[in-house]
C-alpha cells in the first residue's frame, strides 16, 4: 500500500525531471544570417575543445560576447564561456589552470610573479599577452552652446586635478578660438569604484600632460576634485545631469553625449574608429616576438596626426605552447575568428576594430600557438 503511494510520488518527480530535460535549446541569435554573408574568407580550423572557458576583465565582456557569437556562426555549435569577474581573477584562474585563456586590462606583471606562474601553467612555456580588444575612452562633457570642444593632455590634466576651475579659462580659450565659452564652473565627475578605465585615463594624463598631472595612476581617481559616480552608466548619466559637467568614460557610454576632441600637438582629433585605428597602428610593441605587450606610455605621449591616443587596451592571455592539442586547436580557432569575423560589429558596441597591420601581427601570433 505504502509502496504504491511512494511509487506514485517518485513517478511524478521523475516525470517532471524528464519533461524538463527534454525541451531545452540554445536560441538562434538575432541577425545571424546577415552576419555570415559579410564574413571574411580567412580559413578557420574549427574543432577542438568545446566549450572553451575564459575569465577576466569586464571591460572586454561586450567584445568577447560578439566574438563568441561570430565563433558560433563560423564553427557551428562552438561555444565560449567568458566570466567577467575582473582582470585580477582572470589572471589568477588562468595561472591556476582553471580556464583556457584569461582576459586582463594589463599585461602579466613579472614583479607580482604572474609571468613565472603563467609559465608554470603552460608547462614551462611562456604565456603571451595578445591585445585583442581596444576601447577608446571619451572625454564627455555637457556645456550648453558649446559642441566642438577641443582639449589637449595638459589642459585635461589641469581640469581633472582642479588647477582649471572655469570653462572660460585662458588655457581652454587658446584651444577653442571660435567657441563662445561661458563663465561657468567646471563640474568634474569621476568613477568612484575601482576601474581599469580610471587607471588608463590617469596613465594617459601622466604621459601626455607635460608634467601637469602629478597624482600618478591607479584604479581609483586621484584628482581630488569633483563628484564620484558609480560604474560607467553612473558617470554618463551624472555628467548629463549638470550644465558644465565633464568626465571620462568608455566610448560606448558616451554615444549621446558631446565628446571632446583631443589635440596632441598636431591638430584636433575627433574620436572615431579611424582615429583610434591609427593610434593602434602606431602603438609600439615592447614584448618580444609574438608576446604583443604594448608600450602604452609611448602611445599616450605620441603626437601622430589624426590619431586618438586615449585608449584602453585589454589583453587575452594565452599559452604559447603547452596546451592539450584539443584546447590549442579551439583557442586558435576562437582567436582567429575574433581577429577577423568578430570585428564586424565592434564599433556599435563602443570598441575600436583592429587596423589591418595590427590584425596581421595578431594573426601571426595566433597561428604560432601550439
Amino acid at each position, binding site marked *: 500500500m*505504502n509502496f504504491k*503511494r*511512494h511509487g*506514485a*510520488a517518485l513517478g511524478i*518527480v521523475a516525470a517532471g*525531471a524528464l519533461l*524538463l*530535460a527534454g*525541451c*531545452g*535549446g*540554445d*536560441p*538562434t*541569435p*538575432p541577425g545571424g544570417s546577415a552576419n555570415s554573408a559579410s564574413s571574411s574568407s580567412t580559413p578557420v580550423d574549427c574543432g577542438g575543445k568545446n*566549450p572553451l*572557458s575564459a*575569465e577576466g576583465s*569586464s571591460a572586454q*565582456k*561586450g567584445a568577447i*560576447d*560578439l566574438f*563568441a*557569437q561570430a565563433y*558560433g556562426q563560423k564553427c557551428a555549435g562552438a*561555444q565560449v*564561456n567568458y*566570466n*567577467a*569577474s575582473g582582470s585580477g581573477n582572470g589572471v589568477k584562474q588562468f595561472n591556476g589552470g*582553471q*580556464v583556457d585563456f584569461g582576459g586582463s586590462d594589463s599585461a602579466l606583471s613579472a614583479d607580482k610573479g604572474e609571468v613565472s606562474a603563467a609559465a608554470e601553467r603552460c608547462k614551462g612555456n611562456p604565456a603571451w599577452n595578445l591585445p585583442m580588444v581596444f576601447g577608446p575612452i571619451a572625454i564627455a562633457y555637457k556645456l550648453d552652446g558649446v559642441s566642438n570642444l577641443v582639449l589637449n593632455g595638459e589642459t585635461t590634466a589641469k581640469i581633472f586635478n582642479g588647477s582649471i576651475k572655469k570653462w572660460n579659462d585662458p588655457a581652454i580659450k587658446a584651444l577653442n578660438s571660435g567657441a563662445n565659452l561661458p563663465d561657468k564652473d567646471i563640474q568634474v565627475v569621476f568613477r568612484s569604484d575601482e576601474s581599469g578605465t580610471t587607471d588608463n585615463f590617469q596613465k594617459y594624463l601622466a604621459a601626455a600632460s607635460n608634467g601637469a598631472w602629478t597624482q600618478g595612476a591607479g584604479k581609483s581617481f586621484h584628482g581630488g576634485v569633483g563628484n564620484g559616480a558609480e*560604474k*560607467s*552608466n553612473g558617470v554618463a548619466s551624472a555628467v548629463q545631469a549638470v550644465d558644465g559637467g565633464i568626465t571620462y568614460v568608455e566610448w560606448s*557610454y558616451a554615444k549621446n553625449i558631446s565628446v571632446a576632441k583631443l589635440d596632441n600637438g598636431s591638430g584636433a582629433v575627433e574620436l572615431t574608429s579611424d582615429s583610434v585605428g591609427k593610434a593602434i597602428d602606431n602603438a609600439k610593441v615592447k614584448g618580444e616576438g609574438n608576446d604583443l605587450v604594448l608600450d602604452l606610455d609611448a602611445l599616450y605621449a605620441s603626437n601622430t596626426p589624426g590619431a586618438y591616443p586615449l585608449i584602453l587596451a585589454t589583453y587575452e592571455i594565452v599559452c604559447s605552447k603547452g596546451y592539450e592539442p584539443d584546447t590549442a586547436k579551439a583557442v586558435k580557432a576562437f582567436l582567429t575568428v575574433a581577429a577577423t569575423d568578430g570585428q564586424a560589429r565592434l564599433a556599435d*558596441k563602443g570598441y575600436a576594430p583592429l587596423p589591418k597591420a595590427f590584425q596581421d601581427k595578431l594573426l601571426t601570433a595566433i597561428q604560432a600557438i601550439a
Partner: protein
Amino acid sequence: MTTATLDVNQPATPPAFQHLSTGRRVKNGIATALVWLAFLVAVIPLVWVLVSVLARGAHMVANADWWQQSLGGLLGDDVGGGVYHAIYGSLVQSLMCAVIAVPIGLLVAIYLVEYGRGRLAKATTFMVDILSGVPSIVAALFIYAMWITTLGFNRSGFAVSLALVLLMLPVVVRSSEDMLRLVPDELREASYALGIPKWKTIVKIVIPTALSGILTGIMLALARVMGETAPVLVLVGYSGYINYDLFSGEMASLPLLMNSERVSNPSPIGTDRIWGAALTLVIIIALFNLAATLLSRLVAPKKK
C-alpha cells in the same frame, strides 16, 4: 418556570473577576498592538519583495521561450532567450546534493535516535550543531581548497553540489531526528514484543511512521540550498549555453546568472533578465514547498 430556567443558566456564584481594570485593559491593548506591529514589520518586507519581483519579472517569465531556451550566443542587449540552462543547473546541482546528503543525514539521524548513547552521540550532535552554523562561503572555500586545490579537480557543477551537501546535511539530520523522536515508543515496544529484531522495527515501523515529516524536511532543505549563492560564485564558472554535464565545464544556475548579468551587463535587458531570474527562482522554490506539503499528505500514516 421561566425564571427558574434563567437561574439555571446563571452561575451559582458570581464570577470573581467581572470587571477588568482600566490598567489591565490598556496593557492588553498595548500588547495586542505590539504583536500586530511586529507581524506587520515582518510581513511588509516580504510582501514588498514579492510584489516588486512580480511586477518587474512577470513580463519576462510569461514567455514560453524563457523556460525553453538558454542565453547562449546572445549579446548583453539582445532581447529574447531564456533561463533554461540556469534552471537545469540549479535543479541538477541541488538534486545531486540531495542524493549525497539525504542518505547520510537520514542514517545519522537514525543513529542518534535509535542507537546513539554516550560520547560518540554527543560528539555527533555537537558536530552537526557546528556544521549548521557554518556560513555558506566557508563551505564553498573549504570545498575549493579540498576538491580543486588539493585534489586537483577542475571547477564544475559537482563541486557546487559538494559544498551544498555541507549546508544541507545538518538541516536533514536535524529535521529527521526530530521526526524520528516523535514516533511513540509504544510502537517500538509493540514491535519488539512480537519478536521483531531492532533493525526491522526501524525499517518497517519507525521510518514509515515518520516518513511524511522527514520528506517535508528534505524538501524544505532542498529549497533552501537551491538559492545559495556563495558556492556557485566560487566553485563554477557561468555559461550562457546549456551544459548537461554536471562533472565538467561551466554551468549556469539561477543565482549565478543573476550575478553575472549584474556584474557585466549594464543594459536594461540585463536588469530585466535579473528580475526574471529572481521571479523564476521564487516560483521554483514555491513549487518545492508545495510539493513538500503534497508529498507529506500523500505518505502520511493512516489515522484510523
